[in-house]
């Protein structure tokens, strides 16, 4: 039996550090939630597990750093994947323009291929040697809609600006670089502002 260590109890999954045929690996188990109906619970857990595995693979094909998939078990809602060393982007983004631009360009590559992360936060970007890697595609999906890409960016914006005040400059670097690199970048950014305005109480 491989020794497993619980790294994090996230909102929807437990993340363990484990070994996969001698290699350091991450085991992600989606936890059953007692608060929701068993039918809904099973549906959400298995579809998210399957789609996460598929998106991880696709991201790698695009040349974006993401964990390599080792094993998937739908019945247990479990994925075993590569362990990526590094720090969370939220701990090293400040005043790091080069990182901001790399993050933006990587997201543009994903979006240009129709890959929407779905939970783009400063927690889900791991940085090693100042290179970003994207983890947790659990809420990801395929779409070429401007709306979905804009929602992804809005999510990233909120997670960055909610960290602490004064990160507006970092956000501007990210969004400007993204606008230049993404197909329809200008429209996506425009839509992002529209979504922000739409959510306001009128």
């Amino acid at each position, binding site marked *: 039996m491989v020794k497993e260590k619980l790294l994090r109890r996230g909102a929807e999954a437990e993340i363990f550090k484990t070994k996969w045929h001698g290699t350091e690996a991450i085991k992600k188990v989606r936890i059953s*939630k*007692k608060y929701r109906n068993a039918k809904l619970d099973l549906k959400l857990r298995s579809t998210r597990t399957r789609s996460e595995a598929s998106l991880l693979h696709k991201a790698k094909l695009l040349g974006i750093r993401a964990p390599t998939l080792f094993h998937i078990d739908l019945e247990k809602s479990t994925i075993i994947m590569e362990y990526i060393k590094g720090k969370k982007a939220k701990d090293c983004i400040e005043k790091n323009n080069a990182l901001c631009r790399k993050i933006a360009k990587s997201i543009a590559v994903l979006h240009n291929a129709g890959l929407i992360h779905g*939970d783009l*936060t400063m927690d889900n970007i791991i940085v090693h040697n100042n290179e970003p890697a994207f983890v947790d595609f659990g809420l990801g999906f395929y779409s070429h809609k401007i709306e979905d890409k804009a929602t992804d960016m809005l999510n990233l914006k909120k997670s960055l600006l909610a960290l*602490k005040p004064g990160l507006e400059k970092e956000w501007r670097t990210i969004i400007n670089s993204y606008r230049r690199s993404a197909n329809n970048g200008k429209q996506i950014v425009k839509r992002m502002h529209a979504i922000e305005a739409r959510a*306001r109480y009128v």
Partner: protein
Amino acid sequence: MLSLGIESTAHTFGIGIANDKGKILANVKATFRSPRGGIKPQEAADFHLKNAIDVIEKALAEAGVDVKDIDIFSFARGPGLGPCLKIGATVARTLSLIHNKPLAAVNHCVAHIEIGRLLTKAKDPIIVYVSGGNTQIIALEEKRYRVFGETLDIGLGNMLDSFGRALGLAFPAGPILDKMYFQGKNYIDLPYTVKGTDLAFAGLQTAAEKLIGKVPTADLVYSLLHNAFAMLTEVTERALAYTERDEVLLVGGVACSKALQGMLLEMCKQRDAKLFVPKNEFCTDNGAMIAWLGMLEFIHGKTINVAKSSVKQNFRLEETEILW
């Protein structure tokens, strides 16, 4: 010291009186009910105007104080419906000028949160604010309330009312739907839309409305509410995990829902967190919360000049600095 607060952002015209120790001395309200359901802003505003004096007098009597004893007059500046907001603002300005006492113009959403914190003693919670027009998951960061996630289309309460209308229920449909929830037995597959930390309810509503009459109503109501509340619970749990907190404060009109309370409680139990919910009269729109927030702002030296006290329909809660 006494603060008199006026709430008039939507259906409710409410007057509350609070002292500087956080004691609520009065909380009186009159609620506009449209015979057709929904709300026409001008009709609600007319209702507020007609009831203003009566509600104020009842509140003063309930608190056992004279209007001359009031030290500050507060009103909800927004967010809300323009015509309704203007009635509360005009009443507050008038009282402030006649009695030569300071005026406070406060944010309605912040008021919901502050009365919740006051009454439940939650220390540093993730706030779930769900009402007709608002659906937000909020946390206090660096002296501002920050929105962690929110609806991308309609408010959860509006969705329930609107679905209730399609079923032929009277306004407000929420309490009736909440009872029906517990009679539903079979779960029907409906859209479940969580986008990161944001939510969307319009697709869920449309899908459910298409099934009216085709499946047992109690099952449909159960499934609709179940999905909507599960979405909200999921994002709340994500906010707890992300910000490493262990308290949840539920506020706003939809907070009265036993189904929602039960679901959040179950989630909190599973991760050793604590759920706080104020009493119903302080969850729905009320004057006491405006009085209390006005008092907090007054204590911290924040009042407003009548000439600058225009209402703000799109008043965001991030605009208020939390000095306490």
